């Protein structure tokens, strides 16, 4: 198994762990953490393809990863702000109890 395959498999494994966490955990904060994990797995994928791909001099993989890190950080901030606002309203972060649109 070549290096590229091992990196891609690791990235797929991390992605599915993040997906499993985001789909099965009860706390809203952990769902957000799962999403961050999925984004990180995608970053690893980008960098693996940059390193072992056809045109590393174009730096596309690195650029994508840098922008992905920035966007993920911004999204984490806004997501946690939303969770705080919801907590202030309903005193819980349990996703199973946030099932009504009416406040």
């Amino acid at each position, binding site marked *: 198994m070549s*290096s*590229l*395959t*091992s*990196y891609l*498999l*690791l990235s*797929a*494994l*991390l*992605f*599915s*762990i*993040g*997906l*499993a*966490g985001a*789909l*099965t*955990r*009860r*706390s809203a*904060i952990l769902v*957000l*953490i*799962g999403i*961050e*994990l999925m984004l*990180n797995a995608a*970053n690893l994928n980008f*960098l693996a393809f*940059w*390193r*072992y*791909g*056809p045109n*590393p001099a174009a*730096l596309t993989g*690195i*650029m994508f990863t*840098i*922008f992905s*890190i*920035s*966007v993920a*950080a*911004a999204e*984490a*901030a*806004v997501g*946690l*702000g939303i*969770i*705080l*606002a919801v907590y*202030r309203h309903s*005193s819980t972060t*349990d*996703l*199973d109890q946030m099932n009504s649109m009416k406040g």
Partner: protein
Amino acid sequence: MTVAFIILAALTTAGMAAAMGLRNLVHCVLALTLGFAGLAALYLQLGAQFVGFTQILVYVGAVAILAVFAIMMTQSAGPTRRPVFSSAWVTGSIVAGCVFAVLAWAICSSEVSRKMLPPEPEATVHQIGDALMHTFVLPLEIIGLLLTVALIGAVVLAMPEKREMR
């Protein structure tokens, strides 16, 4: 598949699995930080120095702290006795397992992994700066705008509502 890769991959997977599986939220975030550090080491292994250090600076130094603050501010008193997994955990696990199976099959059966691997590319900070200022200047400006909007939005969302005082 060097020894360094195997150790780092095991560390990262263990950290991330613990982050998704532990009961105590703060332990989850600390395990997540370990996973982030493992990923940063993998980026360094791939030769992307700038991205590796940025990963530590942004994720470990900012996102993990943010998650920890959010946990501190949303925890009701005492540890939770409720079940850790939500009511739809069976479906979720099956979906995640299927996604991993499909991805692994696609990776292992593709032509990409059988080609010759090129030598180590060079990605100095100078080249990254050049690329950011010439080829990727539009995404750079948009990211700046996005981060400003996110900053203002997060502050507005989390601001306590004003209460009238007699």
